[in-house]
């Protein structure tokens, strides 16, 4: 779960972790959860943001996801503003598992 520093200004995305598998997910344009950040909904539209919040809260109560929170998005790049969130988008820069898969 994010610890802090969500400014709530500019474009936003909603993120969480899947309850069962634990993977990072983001709400997409259909307000479904995706593991692929490139499909994440990034918006400044307050109505949409309210709908995202409601959907996320509902899904958290329905035990689909855990630890919902909004993240700030850089308008220019469409990437998360915080370094930590940029990192969640990309996954580990190193994982021994990747080495095993290539061998």
């Amino acid at each position, binding site marked *: *779960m994010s610890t802090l520093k969500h400014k709530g200004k500019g474009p936003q995305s909603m993120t969480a*972790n899947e*309850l*069962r*598998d*634990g*993977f*990072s997910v983001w709400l997409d344009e259909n307000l479904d959860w995706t593991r692929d950040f490139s499909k994440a909904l990034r918006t400044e539209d307050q109505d949409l943001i309210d709908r995202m919040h409601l959907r996320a809260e509902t899904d*958290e*109560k*329905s*035990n689909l996801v*855990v*630890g919902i929170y909004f993240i700030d998005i850089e308008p220019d790049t469409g990437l998360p*503003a*915080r*370094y*930590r969130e*940029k*990192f*969640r988008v990309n*996954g*580990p*820069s*190193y*994982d*021994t*598992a990747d*080495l*095993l898969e290539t061998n």
Partner: protein
Amino acid sequence: MYRYDEFDAQLVAERTRQFRGQVERRLAGRLSEAEFRPLRLMNGLYLQLHAYMLRVAVPYGTLNSEQFRMLAHLAEKYDRGYGHITTRQNMQFNWPKLPDVPDMLDNLASVQMHAIQTSGNCIRNVTCDPYAGATAEEVEDPRPMAELIRQWSTLHPEFSFLPRKFKIAVTAAEKDRALIKAHDIGIQIILNEDGDVGYKIYVGGGLGRTPIIGQVLREFLSKGELLAYLTAALRVYNRYGRRDNKYKARIKILVQETGIESFREQVEAEYATIDVSDISVSDAERDRISSYFAPPEFEALANEPKALTDALDANRAFSLWAKNNVAAHKAPGYAIVNISLKPKDLAPGDITATQMRAVSDMADKFSFGELRSTHQQNLVLPHVKQADLPVLFEELEAAGLAADNINLITDIICCPGMDFCALATARSIPISQAIAERFADPERQRTIGEMQIKISGCINACGHHHVGHIGILGLEKAGVEFYQVKLGGDASEHAEIGKVTGPGFSQEELIDGIENMVDLYLKQREAGERFLDTYRRIGIAPFKEVLYA
């Protein structure tokens, strides 16, 4: 090795059944995350940056081959084919799925393992000298005492909700391989003037955001007093440790704010109220526990057998590995073998399932089925015949585990950092890999000699950077990682916290700076000096100068 008695087996089985029910209720929505989180943490299950992480306890770092094979099985069946040895001698899996965790715990219970108290504000897994029971340097094997503390502290009703986590480390040798002075309580088994075996107790050590070296709480504690005295110390901490601020909640802060003299008086006063006979275990029970750690039946052998000396002469790679990775054993004709988990292409402490099985086979073949994990994120085969070393080396080579860099510049302690950890502020694995790459030449590593580089990805200091000869702390500002350097830390019996050099660096600047400092050391060192010795002799200024050049 210790074998669970019926109470241990029942306790772990019940706990696993409980957790299975809790997971089922969570998945069915009958437990909220707020309700479930403390329950999963009590069973070693974290939700990290990208996924869940399960931390499995390896009590005092001792494993048998059957247990290590089970860890390999878990890595393969429920994770992504590897595990990670932590700086507290445990094993972490980075990618488990919540519905699978109860099965993982069942599997662990089948080989007398669990994940209890690998998280939470309780007494954590007791860590220990990885050479325990094998080195001639020790007063006695410290593991029976560590096992006694494990039994006493497991689900201890009074100490399950302490102000903060509580870590105990034990050793029985003057040479400290367990970092006892950087633990909440460190215990050294010693002999007093009368030749009685007892304990020297250190308190208030710790790393994290406020690094402090532990101080002596009791110079000598007789064996029968141990649990009662620990109870007294924990009670004082439980009563006066701060609960209003988690960053000031560790016992080190209490000891620092109270003063060691005053803290000692409080502990002794509390101790005086305890009926020692209520808590202490009988000699018979201590003997029963000790019997599980009885030395294996060593053959009567001579040191330096021909099979060894011939191989040392004939095979340079073997000779270099043996010189660096093999330590003296208490039994003639035997050796302690360190297996480096620091090859250039893996993250420090990572080991694949295939390698775990290979090491298990080697433990069976060469080391009475026993192995150890170390806080330096390596493995140890404690009891290997010297004559078997050449064949063992061949098998390690075949398994990709023959790196001959123990205690050298590429034997780096490194936390998972931002690549996995939810608390991290910067990556640490790429830094360790960049250093390993820069100093890849084995001859150069040997020329540099003993060097401990330790890297943490945040101020919580799981990578022990405060006590590295060179310590590296990863931070982030405005979306850019940078790395602060400490110099002169020491994780040995002469424990010392390193000094910050100044402003941080980018990764590229950092690696160049480290190389500059190493070059300076090589120019300045006097006969027999390690990097740390030269640093102590000439001071921080010349190193800072080349670091910031």
